[in-house]
């Protein structure tokens, strides 16, 4: 069975390969927005050299890492599952001799792997070239990142699944999807880096599931989380990954019991 899920992931990966031009366009958009935020950050740092341990280079790296990870962790307006629910195609997926959730999960893993190579790496590279901030951290922090990034990406998949599966109950949920993406983006530091948040807001953000999506991995690779802080961060990520997976699986179970196919 594991072999089957592996093949699903591989097919999803290869399907993405076809959209070369779309990816290039998306890449340019990421770079463009990364550049805008960089200009803002550079201008802000004219007034103050260091903020909560972040100098201008750290802040630039933070921005570009987030910008590079977005397509992997929190792709904006991901409706794939919702559209199959609305069209009724979901029934064929539900009746496949495999687990519905793990089927979608594998698909998204394949897609994520694609975006690591063709979006994450080139975006960061472009930023590093444009604003010459180089590579952060030492091999320790990259190793730690190697665990935190996949955890964030997997949590991202469950979150994506969660706001799509709502379509079983509400047919037109696009507005909700947009809001769900934006709230997550906000609380994982893609508008304003979390270290810049005022203390009270940071305290809330730390406990939200979104923290682990991008902020924790990025803070780890920048070498800002060490020792106990690092273990706390991992625990938060794993906690939310498990909780969201359970919620999503519960909802899928509920939905598949009451699903009624419209047809004619």
């Amino acid at each position: 069975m594991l072999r089957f899920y592996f093949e699903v992931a591989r097919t999803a990966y290869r399907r993405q390969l076809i959209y070369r031009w779309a990816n290039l366009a998306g890449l340019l958009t990421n770079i463009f927005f990364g550049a805008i935020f960089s200009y803002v950050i550079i201008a802000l740092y004219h007034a103050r050299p260091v903020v909560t341990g972040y100098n201008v280079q750290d802040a630039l790296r933070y921005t570009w890492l987030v910008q590079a990870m977005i397509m992997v962790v929190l792709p904006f307006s991901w409706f794939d599952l919702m559209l199959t629910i609305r069209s009724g195609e979901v029934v064929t997926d539900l009746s496949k001799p495999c687990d519905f959730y793990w089927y979608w999960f594998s698909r998204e893993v394949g897609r994520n792997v694609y975006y690591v190579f063709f979006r994450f790496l080139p975006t960061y590279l472009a930023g590093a070239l444009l604003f010459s901030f180089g590579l952060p951290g030492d091999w320790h922090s990259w190793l730690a990142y190697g665990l935190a990034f996949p955890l964030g990406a997997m949590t991202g998949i469950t979150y994506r699944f969660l706001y799509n599966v709502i379509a079983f109950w509400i047919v037109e949920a696009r507005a909700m999807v947009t809001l769900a993406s934006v709230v997550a983006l906000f609380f994982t530091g893609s508008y304003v880096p979390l270290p810049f948040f005022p203390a009270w807001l940071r305290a809330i953000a730390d406990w939200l599931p979104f923290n682990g999506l991008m902020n924790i991995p990025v803070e780890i690779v920048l070498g800002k989380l060490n020792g106990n802080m690092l273990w706390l961060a991992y625990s938060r990520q794993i906690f939310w990954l498990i909780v969201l997976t359970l919620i999503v699986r519960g909802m899928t179970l509920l939905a598949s019991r009451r699903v009624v196919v419209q047809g004619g």
Partner: protein
Amino acid sequence: MQIISWRAVLHDMLLYRRLIALQIRAQLQYKINVLIDIGTYLAVTVLEFGALLLFFGPFPSLLGWKIGEVALLAAIMSISFGFAEMAGAGIDNFSDTIRRGEFDRVLLRPVGAFTQVIGSDFRLRRLGRITQGTIAFVIALRLLPNLHWTAAKLLILPISIISGAVIFISILLLGATLCFWTVETTELTNMLTYGGREMLSYPITIYSQTLQRFFLFVVPIAFGSYVPTCYILERPLPFGIPSSVAFAAPLVALVFALVAGIVWSFGVNRYQSTGS
């Protein structure tokens, strides 16, 4: 000759009004949906604006611009862009029109193609951004208690908001024209609209001189936000431009719209339909 063309313009404007009224009535059939959409869009844009304010927690100023001043700039930009998004939706959708081959039908009707395209959609939910812009404006005023208002400053507000919207719609039109050759909407258009909005929500002096010139003289989005904000705040403009140039915004918008219109009609004449 002159009289006939004016009559055509008047006819098109009346038609446009009817098309829009139709769109609004259609969307109001689903009142709850429209309200949810407006509310969501409001929430999304408020979060964006909130993020902008958050930067001023740890940092005292942005190249000399204080929080209230940046808020005012972003507010004016939001309102202007909101109107452009609301009215320009039909142009924004143009790639679909081309792909489905619907533009062939548009050309067969005895009415200007532009009027039909811009009249084909009008997104009420964009009221969300306009509302956010208005809220942001009020917040900006609270943050700028010492701002001295004059009649000229009050006048510059509507002038620049409308001019800015016209410039954004012209960019959409240029992007739509590209669809005649590329079929797809290009990301280039999105960068100039969404990217331009994002960029010019901050003072343009934070960007390189080339970019500043670009947004002042090539794609003059700055005339819808940065230039009038500088006039209101009595700040000097870059390159020694006198700040009263803010009153030239309608002229700038008109010239840019004319260029876009010429390019568009060139595209329409060259259009060879899609399909096999």
